[in-house]
């Protein structure tokens, strides 16, 4: 496993850098804007610590780039903005095959008539529950719609670790900032 402290350090560095970039562009942001900026920088920093080795990080960056408001900032934060060709290519690669798969899955799900045949009702119910929850988990994970069972679990593992690190770093920063305010000397 990765060294969690180094991950945190890297995350903090990138995060602060992103925030500084953001605040250098825009002055006098409202609370919500600030919050959005903070969160976006944090998410991008977290995703970039993974260095595009995991699918959720790629999906997160891709989603951030797609969103019109964040696009410019994302490109700034991620260093040299990738050449547009590459960005488009990756997004289409990402969407084409997986879109087909997701459509097919939805179609299958809607179409199939499920009947507990010779198995007991209990196992059927259990299976349904698991399916429902898997779907929910997929909706939570960035880019999770298009993962199959095994990779879903792996990605969840990685995502949880990153989220934990992110939360801890943010909490430390919050505490430190509060102390700064209370003790301005």
């Amino acid at each position, binding site marked *: 496993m990765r060294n969690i402290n180094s991950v945190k350090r890297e995350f903090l*560095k990138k995060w602060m850098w992103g925030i500084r970039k953001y605040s250098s562009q825009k002055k006098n942001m409202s609370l919500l804007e600030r919050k959005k900026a903070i969160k976006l920088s944090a998410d991008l920093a977290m995703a970039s610590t993974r260095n595009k080795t995991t699918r959720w990080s790629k999906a997160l960056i891709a989603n951030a780039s797609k969103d019109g408001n964040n696009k410019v900032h994302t490109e700034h934060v991620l260093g040299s903005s990738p050449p547009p060709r590459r960005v488009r290519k990756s997004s289409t690669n990402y969407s084409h095959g997986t879109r087909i798969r997701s459509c097919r899955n939805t179609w299958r799900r809607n179409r199939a008539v499920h009947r507990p045949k010779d198995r007991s009702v209990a196992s059927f119910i*259990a299976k349904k529950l698991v399916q429902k929850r898997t779907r929910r988990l997929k909706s*939570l994970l960035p880019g999770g719609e298009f993962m199959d069972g095994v990779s879903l679990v792996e990605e969840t593992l990685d995502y949880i670790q990153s989220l934990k690190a992110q939360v801890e770093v943010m909490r430390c920063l919050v505490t430190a900032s509060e102390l700064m305010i209370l003790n301005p000397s």
Partner: protein
Amino acid sequence: MLHCLNGSGNLGASCSDMTVLERQTKWQQQQHHHENHQPYISATEFHVNLVFSSSSSNNHPQSQGSVMARDGSALGEVLAHSVNPDPGFCTELDAGFGSSSGFLPKENIKKRKAQNSKVAAESDNKDKRVKMSGEEGESRVTNQTSNKNGKSNANKNNRETSADSSKDNSKISEVQNQKSEYIHVRARRGQATDSHSLAERVRREKISERMKYLQDLVPGCNKIAGKAGMLDEIINYVQSLQRQVEFLSMKLAAVNPRLDFNIEELFAKEVFPSCAQGLPNIGMPSDMSMCNTPSYLQFNSTQQLVSCCGGLINNAGMSPPNMGLRRNISTTPVPLPEMSLDSSCFAQILPSSNWEGDFQSLYNVAFDQGRTASFPSQPFTGLVESSNLKMEM
């Protein structure tokens, strides 16, 4: 009927260089070649041959376990183990497949999968050997039934453990040879040998392995045994973490009206004496232990709250984060009419699944506060805002 092939030079190429398909074709070639020469060996002698095939083995390092399936048994068992067994081994397990010879074809269970390749062996189950060897670096060698020849058993164990240890090499080669690869899986006794169900089982076991890791990661998952419950816990945990991120970012936005996180100052203060040396402008000190000293922070903040905020702070009780108790930061009513909250309870954040409702309400509170109040840039604005974020466990 078994048919031990002596490893001739045909199989001289290392396992890692050949795909399974090539290996199988080679087996069949050899089988045809040797078919007329070697007598059939009965099942009982099979194990003997397994062990004592050193006489017939040459120096080629691989001992690919491909034992032919015998006739007359109900189960088709396929021994799957690593591609690259220990070179030190002398057991020779080569045998041709039954399909191409005159033997009664056992159920050759071969599946084509794009990811893994393992050497397949179909063995007689008259001895009721049930083995499942591990996949992808996790070995589950269950040698459940007794073997007539204890030595062969030990040898098998050795082979499989050493095979597992060399799985990394095999993995690399497997990744390279992804075109036409087979997964050979042993069906357990009494289970369906349908190729679909075997594939299903492989997949299920992979998933359950990963879930075990998740169990360690997510708190409170140890007691739950079952996919649905665990998934539920995982979902709750991920949601709570995401909400924490939202909340903390909102808090940070509230604390810092100008988004100037002066990390250098933060570290230069007394609060972080350990990290106060020469900070680069943007970078962090190399041994930043900010996140590792939360307890230190807590204690320090208690004193500071008490000392410097004097009249503003009524009672500030702190508890070390390990105990997970509440931490109260209360302020006297600051003359802002909209916010006249006396105290705000600040629970030490412990991830749990009880947070959902609280976070929701909290987030709404913060949101409303952000909208209604017009924040002049007062020195205590940040404090008041943060103190108004009421969070209860």
